[in-house]
């Protein structure tokens, strides 16, 4: 192992070690120091990855520090760090004690860091499933709420079936192409049937991860049941990870023509159903779940173009979506005290009684609705730009109309925050860690919204 290789592997090493360290030394340390360790480790991994040049790694087969990793590891680390910061106060209030929590988050991060580095299907699959494993645990972590366990069960059962589908897909593709290595895999015309069946199954497995219709049904339940910071992490990183997996696969296998129709159907159904089903949701977490169904539909739309622009749009949107949803769920989690604050009516007047958190939530909603000058607009612009460029005019029109309808439920939250009088007492002040996380997320939303140049550049580099 050369020094360069070590440098390249360092983010993975850092997160892995930090996870183990937290798990082992957890009982000896205060929860705040556990959070600090976790945040530091994630930040270190992210920053390191951002400033390391891509290079192959010879010593471990199936791994390489790809340009994609250079973009995604910082992104995942950012999400993990924010999740840890958010969880700190949340867990204290909800009496979720123990070192398992930060350790599991770090494990998830570890797996996520591996994922974009993978150059073969085995590593890819393992990384993806490890991420899911971590989330099975995180979702059901809250023993005080029955919903948490229920959500865990649903997620686990669905996840396991979906994993079987994904694995079957990989198996068929492997059988059809004769290699697990991504770079060597070629679509062999004589095995077209096998490979396309593999793709079909694989796509469905991925549809579960991305919660595309009809594999989306778990999403609202799991978001509702999971602790809010976990929902934040789940709705952002795990989706981006799944999208990244698809990107990697699609990048190596040029997408086959027969996949267009299924993907298009998934995309349209998700955009329409997600946005419509969210319209009258009274539970904000379920609403955000449906919104994420819709957003993943947009993402699928960009994927569908099969063009460089489309893939860039996917990555950009993933990054932006991460910031938006972290802010949204972060605000919800920081406003949850003895009970989860999840009914939209619970947020009445919060915009004035808790200006920072209310403001962040409102900003997140405006951004999710895709209104400038927030990041959501840039993301949406890029998605529809690539869709039009790819000639998906009908899909783009359906998508944009459903996006217009979506503004209704986002604004409903904003209206609830600011435009209704509330007699409820003001929520307790926000802690430092949570405040920091919220500010970071909203700063990202605004900065990307006004000056997306650097991020676009990073995205372009990642696809090189």
């Amino acid at each position: 192992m050369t020094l360069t290789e070590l440098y390249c592997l360092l983010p993975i090493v850092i997160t892995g070690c930090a996870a183990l360290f937290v798990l082992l030394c957890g009982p000896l340390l205060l929860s705040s120091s556990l959070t600090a360790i976790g945040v530091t480790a994630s930040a270190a991994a992210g920053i390191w990855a951002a400033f390391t040049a891509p290079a192959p790694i010879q010593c471990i087969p199936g791994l390489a520090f790809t340009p994609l990793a250079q973009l995604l590891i910082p992104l995942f680390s950012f999400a993990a760090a924010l999740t840890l910061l958010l969880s700190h106060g949340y867990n204290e209030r909800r009496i979720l004690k123990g070192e398992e929590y930060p350790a599991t988050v770090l494990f998830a991060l570890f797996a996520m860091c591996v994922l974009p580095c993978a150059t073969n299907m085995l590593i890819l699959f393992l990384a993806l499933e490890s991420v899911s494993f971590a989330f099975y645990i995180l979702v059901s972590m809250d023993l005080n709420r029955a919903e948490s366990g229920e959500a865990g069960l649903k997620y686990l059962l669905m996840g396991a079936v979906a994993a079987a589908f994904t694995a079957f897909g990989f198996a068929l593709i492997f059988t059809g192409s004769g290699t697990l290595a991504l770079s060597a895999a070629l679509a062999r015309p004589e095995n077209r049937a096998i490979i396309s069946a593999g793709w079909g199954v694989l796509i469905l497995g991925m549809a579960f991860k991305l919660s595309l219709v009809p594999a989306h049904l778990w999403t609202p339940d799991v978001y509702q049941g999971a602790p809010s910071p976990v929902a934040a992490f789940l709705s952002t990183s795990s989706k981006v990870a799944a999208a990244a997996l698809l990107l990697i696969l699609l990048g190596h296998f040029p997408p086959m023509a027969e996949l267009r129709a299924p993907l298009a159907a998934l995309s349209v159904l998700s955009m329409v159903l997600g946005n419509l089903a969210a319209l009258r949701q009274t539970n904000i977490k379920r609403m955000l779940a449906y919104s994420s169904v819709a957003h993943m539909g947009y993402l699928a739309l960009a994927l569908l173009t099969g063009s460089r622009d489309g893939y860039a749009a996917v990555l950009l949107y993933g990054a932006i979506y991460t910031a938006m949803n972290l802010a949204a769920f972060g605000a919800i989690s920081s406003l949850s005290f003895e009970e989860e604050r999840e009914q939209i009516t619970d947020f009445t007047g919060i915009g004035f009684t808790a200006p920072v958190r209310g403001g962040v939530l409102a900003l997140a909603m405006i951004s999710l609705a895709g209104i400038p000058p927030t990041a959501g607009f840039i993301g949406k612009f890029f998605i529809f730009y690539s869709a039009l460029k790819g000639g998906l005019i009908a899909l783009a029109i359906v998508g944009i109309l459903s996006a217009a309808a979506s503004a209704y439920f986002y604004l409903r939250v904003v209206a609830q925050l600011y435009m209704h009088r509330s007699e409820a007492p003001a929520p307790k002040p926000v802690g430092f860690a949570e405040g920091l996380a919220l500010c970071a997320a909203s700063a990202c939303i605004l900065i990307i919204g006004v000056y997306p140049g650097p991020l676009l550049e990073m995205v372009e580099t990642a696809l090189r």
Partner: protein
Amino acid sequence: MTSLIPILSLLIFLPLVGALLVFALRQSASAARWLALAFGAAEFVLACAPLAIDRQGTAQVGVPTGFFLYQDHGWIDRFGIRFTLGMDGISLVMVILTAFITIVAIIASWKVKERQGLYLSLLLALQGAVQGLFLSLDLFLFYLFWEAMLIPMLFLIGVWGTGRPVYSTIKFFLYTFVGSLLMLLAIIALYLMHGAQTGSYTFALPALMHTTVPYQLGLWLFGAFLLSFAIKFPLFPLHTWQPDAYCDAPVAGTLMLASLLSKTAAYGLIRIAYPLFPEASRALTPLVYVVAVLGICYFAWVAFAQRDMKRMLAYSSVSHMGFVALGIAAWSPVAVSGALMQMVNHAITTGALFVMVGMLDERAESRDLSDFGGVWGKVPVLAFFFLIFNMASAGVPGLNNFVSELIVLVGVFKVAPAAALGAFLGSVLTLIYTVRLVQEVLFGKESKPTVLAEVSLREGSVLVLLAVVVVYLGVHPGPVLDLFKAPLELLLNK
């Protein structure tokens, strides 16, 4: 000509900075008020500054013809999006108008009781967005401001509104949002088409004008632009957000909506939609004529049925905007200059009326016509101004609206006499509801409460300001019309 001071950027960022500072000072209402007013005034001075410079200056390399102030900075290079601002006569007038109306709005919100700092800060932010819209020469930038305007407005109506503010504000937002998203698709499509044709991907408006758009596609794209602008305008039958929003918004909100936001749509049609798609716009012109004329008459008629003064004025406002649409549809120099003039006049007159209804509402705590009567006897000064603005709105010559309506009608008559005839009918209907409003408020027996406070110095100053403009533009609108001349020649000869 690019001056040393980046006036154009300042015009946009000064109000935004003001918004932030006012927001920071929101704890002290009076400090916030004066600061907001100071920023409003500074913006006005800045907006008028270009009047002093040489506007004929020789054309410079890289500057599109006709723009005497121009700024161009890189922004999002990936898409060729640039921060391009330019000012010609049309935008100059619109910028001054915006600055003026904002001052009026700030003074009119002097007595907002709750969260005044935030309120004023939103007003300034809105001003910044509107100024940006009037100045941007990059289609992406235009769209950005077009949508960004919605956010402050959303809060202004929703938080400080009366009646059913949440319903109204969300309705307003969704309506406009649907239209603008379709416009976004059209913008992107145009951008891609231009890029494919020339190889340079850019959102620069002057460059996009040279795109060759196939006729069928052009119809669709223009349709998307038209839809978006027609909703904001609003044109019949896309207007139903408007009475609710105007009615439920606080005074300054209504003022900004009626006086400025509707103008952004008209501006968009004149600056963007029509020049970009000359063929498609020609083809759809009959449609625009029909909705414009229908709007003028229908809204005037419906206005007559209203009991709520603000709602009546809301309908009156759309009815008058029909003249703008009519002028644009005719797309001849005279008609369009009339439409532009009508935009200015409508902003002043309708704005003034909304301010006055706000004053009446503040005093009598009602906007229902049956609660008024004999106001002339109670508060003659207020009544005097109310009468003036109403007469201006009814198109009495010597006051501002007459001039622009005459120009529009004369211009339109040349091109489409039938449409002009419809609009003439509308002017009778306009008078009918106007005199009804005047009569039920000012005349008749004094209703309870018999004592109303006479205009205060603050209110008086606003009213005098507005009235002076109303009369000035009615008697001597030459300077404003002259400003439109050069840009229109360029726009219409394309």
